[in-house]
C-alpha cells in the first residue's frame, strides 16, 4: 500500500488511518507526496515553494493528531508560515526573497493536527484574480486540460489536489477563491462562515471580513473533519462564528433531513450570461436532490437581483487594494511603484486613493443592509429556505492567457473575469457559508461545480447535503488527464 500512485488515490482521512494503524509511516506518506510533486508539478506549475527538507524533518517525528503524518500544501497567500517564503504572487517579494516572520493560527492548527506541509502553491497577485496566472510565477495549468486555467485565486492548491499531489491543500476565498478553482478542478470547496476560522494573529479581519479560509479537498469528509480542526475563536479575534452543536465530521456522514432548496441559474445582479452547461449542471443537481427527498423549486432571495451594490462595492475593493500595496511597501521596506505590481493591481490601488472614509463607510453600511435582505430568505420564520442551489460559475474553465495577459488592459481583464465571480462573490459580502461540489462534467470533459449556499453559520447543513450527494452521485472515480 506504499506505492505512490495508490496513495495518491486516498483522501486525507484514509491516509491518516494508514498512519494510525501503523501500515504506513509518516515518512513514507511524505516521501511519496514529494515524489509526486517532483514528477507531476513541472506539467502544472502548482507548487512554487517546495519545503521538502522541512517536511521530511517533521515527518520523522510527526505531531500526534487526527491527521498525523498526512502531507499537505499551503497557498502562498491567506496565511503565512514562519521562515517560509511569502510572495503573494508578487514579483517584488519574489525578488527580495521575503520570508514570513511568524505563522498564522490556521497553519499552526493544521500542523497541530499532524499535517505535514510539503510546499506552497501558486496564487495570482494578492489573490485579486479568478485565474492563477501571476506574472511573477507564471500560470498554473488545469490538470483536466493543461491549455486551461485551474481557476483562482487558490488555483495552485486546487490543481495540486486534483492532480493527486496531496489529498487536501489550504485555500482562501475573498470573492470565490475557494469555490472557483474547486469548480474548475473538480474538487470539494467549502467557504466557511465569516469568523469561523481565525485570520490571526496577523489580522483581525481581512478585506472587511470578505475573506474566509479553509481547504480544497476531494472528499466531503475531509472538508468536514478539517473544519473541525480549524474552527474556533482565538484570543483577540474581533468576532467569531458560534460553534456547532456537534463535530462536522459526524454531520457529514449522515443524510440531512428533507430540505427546502431554491434553484437559481441566473447570474446574481444580472452580471453576465450563464453558460448553458453551467446552468444545466445546477438543474441536474436539482433533479438529483429531488430524487433524494428534498423539495426544490426555482426561487432565490429577491435582493440578489439588485444591481446597485455591485458598482459601489468597488469603493471597498479599491480601498483594500491600496491597503495591500501599502502593506507591500512595509514588507519590502521601501516605497512601491507601478513597476512593482501588476498593472491591474496598480490601477485598483490608484482608484482606492480617491475613496473617502465617508464613501467607504456608506458602502459597508449598504452592504450590511443588503446582507440582511439576502439572509431573510434563509431566516424568515414563516417561509425559510435551507439552501440555495446555483452553478458555481457562469463559464467553463478559461483558456490560459485570456484572463490576465501580461500586456493586457486591466479594465478588460476585470470584465472578462466577471463570469467566474458572478455566483460566488455575493456570499463573501453576506458572510454565509457556500460550497462548490463537483457534480458535473462538460461535453469536453471539464469539471463543472454546483454551489450550495447555507444560512448563516450552517456549514453543518451544507456538509450533510454534500455528503449525501457524494454517496448518491460519486465523483471519486473521475480522474484528470494529468494525475499522479
Amino acid at each position, binding site marked *: 500500500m506504499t506505492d505512490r500512485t495508490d496513495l495518491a488515490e486516498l483522501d486525507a482521512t484514509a491516509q491518516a488511518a494508514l498512519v494510525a494503524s501503523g501500515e504506513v509511516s509518516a515518512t513514507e506518506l511524505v516521501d511519496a507526496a514529494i515524489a509526486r510533486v517532483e514528477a507531476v508539478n513541472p506539467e502544472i506549475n502548482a507548487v512554487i515553494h517546495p519545503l521538502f527538507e522541512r517536511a521530511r524533518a517533521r515527518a520523522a517525528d510527526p505531531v500526534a493528531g487526527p491527521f498525523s503524518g498526512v502531507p499537505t500544501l499551503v497557498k502562498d497567500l491567506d496565511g503565512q508560515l514562519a521562515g517560509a517564503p511569502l510572495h503573494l504572487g508578487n514579483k517584488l517579494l519574489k525578488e527580495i526573497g521575503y520570508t514570513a516572520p511568524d505563522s498564522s493560527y490556521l497553519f499552526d492548527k493544521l500542523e497541530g493536527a499532524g499535517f505535514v506541509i510539503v510546499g506552497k502553491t501558486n496564487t495570482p497577485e494578492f489573490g485579486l484574480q479568478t485565474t492563477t496566472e501571476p506574472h511573477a510565477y507564471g500560470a498554473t495549468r488545469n490538470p483536466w486540460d493543461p491549455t486551461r486555467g485551474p481557476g483562482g485565486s487558490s488555483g495552485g492548491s486546487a490543481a495540486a489536489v486534483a492532480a493527486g499531489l496531496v489529498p487536501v491543500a489550504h485555500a482562501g476565498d475573498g470573492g470565490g477563491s475557494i469555490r472557483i478553482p474547486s469548480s474548475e478542478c473538480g474538487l470539494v470547496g467549502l467557504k466557511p462562515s*465569516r469568523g469561523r476560522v481565525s485570520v490571526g494573529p496577523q489580522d483581525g479581519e481581512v478585506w472587511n471580513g470578505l475573506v474566509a479560509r479553509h481547504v480544497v479537498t476531494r472528499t466531503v469528509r475531509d472538508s468536514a473533519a478539517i473544519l473541525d480542526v480549524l474552527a474556533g475563536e482565538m484570543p483577540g*479575534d474581533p468576532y467569531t*462564528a*458560534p460553534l456547532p452543536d456537534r463535530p462536522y465530521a459526524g454531520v457529514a456522514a449522515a443524510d440531512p433531513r428533507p430540505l427546502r432548496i431554491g434553484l437559481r441559474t441566473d447570474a446574481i445582479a444580472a452580471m453576465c450570461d450563464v453558460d448553458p452547461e453551467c446552468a444545466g449542471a445546477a438543474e441536474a443537481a436539482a433533479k438529483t436532490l429531488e430524487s433524494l427527498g428534498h423539495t426544490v423549486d426555482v426561487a432565490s432571495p429577491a435582493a440578489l437581483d439588485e444591481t446597485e451594490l455591485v458598482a459601489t462595492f468597488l469603493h471597498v475593493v479599491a480601498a483594500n487594494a491600496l491597503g495591500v500595496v*501599502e502593506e507591500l511597501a512595509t514588507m519590502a521596506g521601501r516605497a512601491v511603484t507601478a513597476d512593482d505590481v501588476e498593472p491591474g493591481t496598480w490601477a485598483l490601488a490608484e482608484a482606492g486613493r480617491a475613496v473617502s*472614509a*465617508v464613501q467607504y*463607510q456608506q458602502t459597508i453600511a449598504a452592504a450590511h443592509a443588503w446582507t440582511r435582505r439576502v439572509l431573510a430568505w434563509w431566516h424568515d420564520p414563516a417561509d425559510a429556505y435551507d439552501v440555495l442551489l446555483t452553478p458555481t460559475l457562469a463559464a467553463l474553465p478559461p483558456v490560459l492567457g485570456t484572463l490576465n495577459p501580461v500586456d493586457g488592459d486591466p479594465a478588460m481583464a476585470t470584465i472578462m473575469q466577471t463570469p467566474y465571480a458572478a455566483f460566488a462573490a455575493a456570499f463573501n459580502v453576506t458572510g454565509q457559508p457556500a460550497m462548490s461540489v463537483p457534480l458535473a462534467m462538460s461535453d469536453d470533459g471539464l469539471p463543472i461545480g454546483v454551489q450550495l449556499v447555507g444560512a448563516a453559520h450552517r456549514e453543518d447543513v451544507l456538509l450533510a447535503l454534500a455528503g449525501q450527494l457524494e454517496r448518491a452521485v460519486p465523483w471519486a472515480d473521475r480522474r484528470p488527464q494529468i494525475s499522479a
Partner: protein
Amino acid sequence: MDDIDAVGQAELVRTGKVSPAELVDAAIARIEALNPELNAVVRDRFELARVEAAGDLPVGPFRGVPMLLKDLSAAMEGEPLYEGMRLLRDADYRASATDALARRFLDAGFVVLGRTNTPEVGLLPTTEPHSYGPTHNPWKRGHTPGGSSGGSAAAVASGMVAVAHANDGGGSIRIPASCCGLVGLKPTRGRVPIGTDLNEVSNFLICEHVVSRTVRDTAEVLDVTGAPRSVGASRAPTPRGAYADEVGIDPGRRRIGFLDADPTGSSGLHPECVAAVTEAARLLESLGHLVEPSFPLQWADAEALVRFSSVWATECSYVVDDWAAKVGRSVTEDDVEPLTWALTTMGRGVSGPAFMGTVVAAMEEARAAAGWWRPDPGDDEAEGYDLLLTPTLGEPPPPHGTFDSTREAPLDGFIRSASFVPFTTQSNISGQPAINLPLHWTADGLPVGVQLVAAFGREDLLIRVAAQLEAAAPWIDRHPSVHA
C-alpha cells in the same frame, strides 16, 4: 414599586399581584413628578404605553414591565428618533422600521414609556445636548449624569423605571452607570443586535444593552437582548447557558489584575477614583480572589487614544452625512453643535484606505492585548488573568459645562473628556465585555464606579463576580437626592 427591579416587577405581574397597567401608571406618575428636576426623558409615549399595557402584551420574561429607550438607536417604526440632533427634531424624522433590538425589548413584554436624553449623536461622555438641554445627576443637580446614555442612567437612578436602554461606543453605558450609581454592562461585540438604521462599521465600537440597579436585571435582560440569533454581521461566542443562572454561582478563586493609575500616564486620577478601586481590590481579596497590580501593556500606548479618536471622527462624519441624506438635505455648521461639526469636517477629510488602516491597527492592538487574559478562566494552569479591575472613570461626575465646546474652540470639550474616561475605550476597540459596579461614593455623596473587564465572550464571569460583589457590598438601599 420604585425600589423593585425589573425581574421583581415581572414576577409581580406573573403572579397576578399587579397588572401591567398599574406598573405603567405608577412609572408614568414617577416620571411626571421627577422629570422636571432631571430632564432625563425627552419625549414620552404615555398614551400609547397605557394602551399597550391594557392590551395583549407578548408573554415574555418582562411582560408588563415599564422601561425607557435612549433616543439613539432602538428605532420603532413610525416613531421619532432624534439622537440629540436639532436637525432631526426640526425635520420630525420618523424611523422607517422597528429595529432588531427594539423588537427584542417589545417581544420580551417590556412597555416603552418614552425616550431618554443623549448628547448629539452620542459623541460625549456627558448628556447636555443643545437640542434638549442638560440632564441632571439625581445625586447632585447641576452635575453631569455621564453620557452618552445619561438620560437613561438618570431615569433609572431616580427610580422612574427599573431598567433603561443604553449603548456604548466609547464607554457610554459604563460612564453614566458610574456617575449615577448603577450596574452598566457593555456586552461583547456582536452579542446584541444593532439596528437596521445603523451602520455596522460603527458596530465595530458600539454595543447595545441597558443600565440597571441590580446585577440580576442586567443578566436577565442580556438573555433577552443577547439571545443567539441568525442574522447580523458580527457575532460573539455562544453563551454557555442563561446569564440569569450565573447570578449566585460561586465564581471560584479568580486571578484579577488591578490598575489604579491612568495607564498612559497622561493624567492624574482623582483620589476618590483611586479610593474606589483600592477598596474594590480589598473586597475582592476578602472574597478569596488573587488580586495583584497588572494590566495589558498595550493599554499604556497613548497612540491608542489617537486611533480611537480618528475612528470616532470618521464615524461621526458618516453618521451626520447619513442623517442628512435621510432627511433630504445637506448639513451646515448651523445645524449641529460645534463639536459635531468639527468632527464631521475632520472625518470628511479622511480617506477610505486611511480609515481602514486605522481599524486594522486597532484590531492588531486588541489582538496583542487579548493575550493578557486567560482564554479559559477555568484553567488554573494557564498563564494570565481572568479579570482586569480599574476605576471606571478618572474623576467623579463634574458640573455641567465641563465638556462644553465653542465654535472658536470646537474640540475643547472632547479633549477635556480624555482625563475623565481613561479606562473605557479600550474595550470598545477590543470588543471585550466590561461592567461598571457602584461600589464607592465620594465624601459629598456622588457615586464613583469600578470597572471589571473580562475576556472576549465572557459576560458569564463578569456577572458571577458582579453578583458576588453585590451580595458582599450591597448598594440597593442607597438612594440619590432626587428619587421617587
